[in-house]
């Protein structure tokens, strides 16, 4: 298990992490999301033992991260957002070198290297120099390198940034297969669809703070609850607006095309009562549903960029209040 408790880190006057708390269970596939500069890489580097917190604690399997315990280093595989390559080494030499860094030199290691290169599709190119590889191939090699010592925990910092769609898809498949093999995976990314497709858990960080964390289904359910209800009406909107005005749980109403979008603070039962009221008031309701949320809308909402999106989405808007 990886846990960060109230972690603070500053560089000069800039607070990179400001009381970050984060928990990753064994076997989880944890998506770490946040805007650029939110502190993702700093947090990841702390888990890898490359940075230390000014305050708080970072624990990996009950060992303090960065404590230089060989057992701990053996458990973590790290794929940074840059490949970290030696241009005049061949692929196979690069892999051999990192195997040596883990004190692995036997025949079993040679076989493992071949299997890993095969997994990432670079076995045929193993005698090529690293500077001949494109970004996608370098990232695949970086993944193979991180797995050389068969770590229990794999940490990937924006691994698919800058990759073409095909390579991104291949990379996602590889990560999904690794997750199936029982590894704990921490992946940071700005591609929210990728996170929602791959991960079991998610943490959203903004300005060095965790703003939301949990199982991905639970998080999406919460998003749905905060989304507007869309009411489609056949005919005039007048009676509907009158009925809505009478309900205290309706916070605001806006009009999009011929639909009403209402912000509603009630429970699911209150929602059905509202529908009942509309029907009883003679409003010809064609549709009544809550707008589906996605990770992107949640991300925008939590990181404070929701307002911009609203403006672009809604063609017409009418404030509604009882005065």
């Amino acid at each position, binding site marked *: 298990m990886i846990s960060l408790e109230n972690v603070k880190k500053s560089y000069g006057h800039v607070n990179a992490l400001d009381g970050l708390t984060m928990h990753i269970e064994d076997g989880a596939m944890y998506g770490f999301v946040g805007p650029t500069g939110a502190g993702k890489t700093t947090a990841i580097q702390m888990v890898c033992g490359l940075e230390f917190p000014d305050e708080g604690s970072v624990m990996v399997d009950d060992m303090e991260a960065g404590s230089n315990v060989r057992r701990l280093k053996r458990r973590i595989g790290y794929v*940074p957002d840059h490949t970290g390559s030696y241009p005049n080494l061949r692929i196979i030499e690069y892999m051999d070198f990192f195997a040596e860094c883990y004190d692995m030199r036997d025949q079993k290691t040679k076989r493992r290297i071949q299997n890993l290169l095969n997994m990432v599709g670079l076995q045929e190119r193993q005698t090529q120099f690293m500077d001949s590889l494109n970004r996608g191939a370098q990232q695949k090699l970086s993944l193979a390198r991180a797995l050389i010592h068969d770590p229990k925990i794999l940490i990937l910092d924006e691994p698919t940034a800058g990759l073409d769609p095909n390579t991104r898809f291949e990379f996602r498949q590889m990560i999904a297969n690794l997750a199936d093999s029982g590894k704990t995976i921490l992946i940071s990314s700005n591609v929210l669809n990728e996170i929602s497709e791959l991960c079991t858990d998610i943490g959203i960080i903004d300005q060095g703070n965790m703003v939301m964390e949990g199982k991905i289904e639970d998080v999406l359910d919460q998003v749905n609850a905060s989304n507007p209800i869309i009411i489609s009406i056949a005919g005039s909107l007048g009676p509907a607006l009158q009925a809505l005005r009478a309900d205290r749980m309706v916070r605001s109403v806006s009009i999009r095309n011929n639909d009403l979008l209402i912000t509603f603070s009630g429970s699911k039962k209150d929602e059905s009562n509202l529908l009942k009221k509309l029907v009883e008031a003679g409003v010809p309701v064609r549709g009544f549903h809550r707008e589906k949320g996605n990770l992107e809308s949640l991300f925008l909402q939590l990181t404070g960029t929701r307002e911009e999106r609203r403006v672009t989405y809604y063609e017409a808007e009418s404030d509604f209040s009882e005065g």
Partner: protein
Amino acid sequence: MRLNPIFLKDEISSARSFTLPVLVTLVNGSLSILVLMNLFFISRSARITGEISYVNFLRIYYIAAAAEVLLILLITPALTSASVSGERDRKTLGLLLTTQLDPWDIVTGKLMGALSTLLLLVFTSMPILATVYIYGGITWYQLFLFIFFLVTSSVFCSSIGIMVSSFFTTTAAATAVAYVMIFVSYTVMFMAVIFRDQLGIPENRIIPGIFIAFWAMSLFLLYISKRHITPHRRRKLREG
């Protein structure tokens, strides 16, 4: 026996670059030119005066030895000041630190890489220095002392290069600082030799003293490099 992986990796890289053969050619070429020119002037003088001055042969040795020391001092910062900063530039230093390698392994691997090049230069230049033996000249002890001084200088200058390389992000700045540090260190050493009487250092202690000081400083510089590249918890300033 397990060889340092950093050293092995750097050896593969350096074997593939033009730097090593160019360096060996330049150093030995310039030393050869120096020695041959000296021999030429000795023989020309002999043709004119009809005398062969054996002292002049010894002069060849001193000139070549001084030139070699100077070349080592000039080459080492260029060889080492990108050692750690290069890993940082390539973003590989972090990767190395996440492996089971100890930061000390990284520093010693870099030192071994630099020394392998410098010692290659020292030993390939031995035949040139051996010209002094044509007519006899120096004792085995003097030769041993000279080689030991070259090795000590190689270790010391490499340690300076590695240390500044671990502090500076740009290779140019690291190289400049390394040259300044080497210049200051050797000036102090020569001053200590010249003014040993005024400083009250007995003559039989000056040479061992210099060697001990250089080796001790080398270890200290390597220790500082190791400390600097090791991720560490920032010390809190005491309040009040």
